[in-house]
């Protein structure tokens, strides 16, 4: 752990990303302290430019505080990103582990299923799922997870496929260990690194998908998120640039930070790259 941190900290870009991410997390956690009121509340003069009428980042067409929205939206956007990723990783790990470990017909079946999900145009499929389940934060999370898991499944399958023939796994067979225990206790811990890396990047993608869905009018109308702000502000882009630009920058920074951290994790966890840098 210690050496991992040392390797990670050597990467200045990753540290920078971690710092931004930390700020965003703090912002999400303290949103209710700095902006105690509902971020939807009509706080004052509408379409105030940044810095005027007491709005740090301006206000939108209904006079809602953009800054309050960004602070509260951070919570939602990160939550959507994290939960969707967790669900996707869970599905992906189960599918990939079973396919990679058992091989043969199980592998065939599960991988055909995975292929099927990869063959469907994923964003259209996400839209379809949200439309069917009605736009709400839950349906958005589910839709993002459903279109994201195949990548995890493929990765995990590959790892399991190579690890299951490793001698230490065979050694477990020779002492009569059960399959579930081998998969969970022996193999899985050894492919955590790539899962963590792909997971971290998926959080970023999930946030982007959420904003894309919101752009098309498929956000949850009751919850403040960056996607909502960007979607709601996009027609104002030419008249009140700040309404959609600041949340857009929030998304950009978060996605950027997560990617930098993800790459840092990759460098720190992936021994092959480690040797060369």
């Amino acid at each position, binding site marked *: 752990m210690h050496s991992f941190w040392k390797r990670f900290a050597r990467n200045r870009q990753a540290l920078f990303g971690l710092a931004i991410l930390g700020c965003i997390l703090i912002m999400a956690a303290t949103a209710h302290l700095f902006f105690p009121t509902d971020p939807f509340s009509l706080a004052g003069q509408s379409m105030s430019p940044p810095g005027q009428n007491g709005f740090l980042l301006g206000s939108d067409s209904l006079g809602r505080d953009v800054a309050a929205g960004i602070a509260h939206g951070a919570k939602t956007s990160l939550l959507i990103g994290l939960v969707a990723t967790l669900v996707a990783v869970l599905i992906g790990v189960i599918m990939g582990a079973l396919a990679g470990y058992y091989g043969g017909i199980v592998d065939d079946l599960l991988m055909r299923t995975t292929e099927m999900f990869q063959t469907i145009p994923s964003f259209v499929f996400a839209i379809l799922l949200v439309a069917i389940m009605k736009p709400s934060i839950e349906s958005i999370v589910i839709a993002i997870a459903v279109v994201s898991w195949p990548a995890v499944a493929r990765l995990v399958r590959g790892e399991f496929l190579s690890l299951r023939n490793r001698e230490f796994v065979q050694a477990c067979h020779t002492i009569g260990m059960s399959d579930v225990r081998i998969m969970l206790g022996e193999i899985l811990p050894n492919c955590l690194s790539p899962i963590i890396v792909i997971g971290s990047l998926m959080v970023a993608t999930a946030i982007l998908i959420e904003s894309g869905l919101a752009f098309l009018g498929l956000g949850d*109308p009751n919850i403040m998120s960056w996607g909502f702000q960007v979607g709601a502000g996009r027609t104002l882009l030419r008249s009140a640039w700040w309404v959609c630009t600041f949340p857009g920058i929030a998304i950009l920074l978060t996605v950027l930070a997560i990617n930098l951290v993800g790459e840092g994790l990759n460098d720190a966890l992936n021994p092959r790259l480690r040797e060369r840098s």
Partner: protein
Amino acid sequence: MRHLCKFALAAVAMSAALASGAAMAQKAGGNLVFIVQPEPPSLAGYLSTSGPIGLVAPKIYEGLFDYDNDLKIAPALAESYDVSDDGKTVTFKLQQGVTWHDGEPFTSADVEFTVMEVLKKVHPRGPNSFREVTSIDTPDEYTAVFNLAKAAPYMLSALSAYESPMVPKHLLEGQDPRNAELGNNPVGTGPFKFVEWKKGQYIRLEKNENYWKEGLPYLDRIVGRFIPDASTRTAAMESGEVMYGAFGAIPNIDAVRLRDTDGFSVTTEGYATINPMALIEFDTTEPPFDNPALRKAISYALDRQFLIDNIWFGYGKPATSALSSTFAGPGLYKDPMPNYVPTADIEEAIKLLDEAGITPDENGVRAKAVLDLIPYGEDWRRAGEYMKQALVPIGIELELRYEDVPTWLKRVYHNYDFAMNVNYFYQLADPVLGVHRHYGTDQIRQGTHFVNSTRYPNPKLDELLVAGAQEPDAAKRGEIYGEIQSILAEDMPVLNLFEMEFLTVYNDKLKGIDVSGLGAYGSFAEAWIDD
């Protein structure tokens, strides 16, 4: 009473030229690209009153009448008309020498076929507009006599190319109009002929060289373009790629900006026959909105002017009654009505609730409900977000629901699974056409869209509605509608928010588009481009 109106072609052309404001020399030639949004399902204007169809079909088809900017009748395929004293016979004299785009002559047989076989049967509003028509006689090729069971003065308001297009009998006879090839390959008598429809891109119409109005149309070609994104539509307008966008194709915020930019104009003209009204429908059969006090309290708590100023950027007029103030013209609108305020009156709202015994719980909440929003664009979402906030002070907690069109239609008009629904209705040129459907008990028709979804039953009102439809005397009719408005203001099954003003944004190079009361639903025969 006996009307006889004759128009001379020359006079029409003259008046049109005068109406367009200046005695400029119209220039023939040029291509007009305008925005059609969304892409229409078909071009069968005789099957659907869908907006985008209305933008394209009236350039191809024509009606018996046109209407000027004051909604006065202007001649179109009917050269003149004559109403009998009892109002039960209406005789139309048709233009001579009119041909369909395929060369066949247009005759009274086409009129008879269109009204009796098409509009009365498959048009969404036709059965209502022509409900009194029992038969049509065609004594000669250019005369059509409508025989009515009762007088139906409102029928004469429903004869435009958009509302009641004349269709070719020889292409539809013996077929189900709903399946006919004509829907995607329209053949009309209008100034422009259909050429091609590139799905997802554009509909292309070319000048009808054999158009019966001499010298018209001016334009060589009209192209209707589909651009899904509102900001892109604005950009296309600014870059000159499109020159005309109606029905809010350009969002109000951008329209306001373009209004102040050289080279572009914004107008609210051309929507007089539509009369759109933004409103909230309540489920009056179930708590909490079975209590009129709650409905009225909401009417007091909402700031109508805020909606207009901040979401529709100044376009619109606070509603003051169940009828739009545009009905002041025929003397049907009564002003002012109780329970309608332009800006919020929270105290009055709370007073109403307290009196009705709707008291707050420990969290200050008096009622909870889900607010459904009409899925026709961002503005309605903003309105919902505003309402959610605006009702907090009076202790009503809303949850917003925004679904796609089919889900919403099913929910509101089929499953009746809603409590409070933001919507808008076209009140059209006459209350009988646009307002009655919202309130009559006979209009509680499960599964039919845009009728009485509130399931508000009032026998007294039903009687008044019937009387209002048939009363030929304007003053008496005004009284009847006055009473109707009082009842509706008191019961408020539907809460009118504001009279919407749709915007048309156009490039200043485009001239001659303001000659018809139909606006964007007009024929554009006299439109021309001044380079």
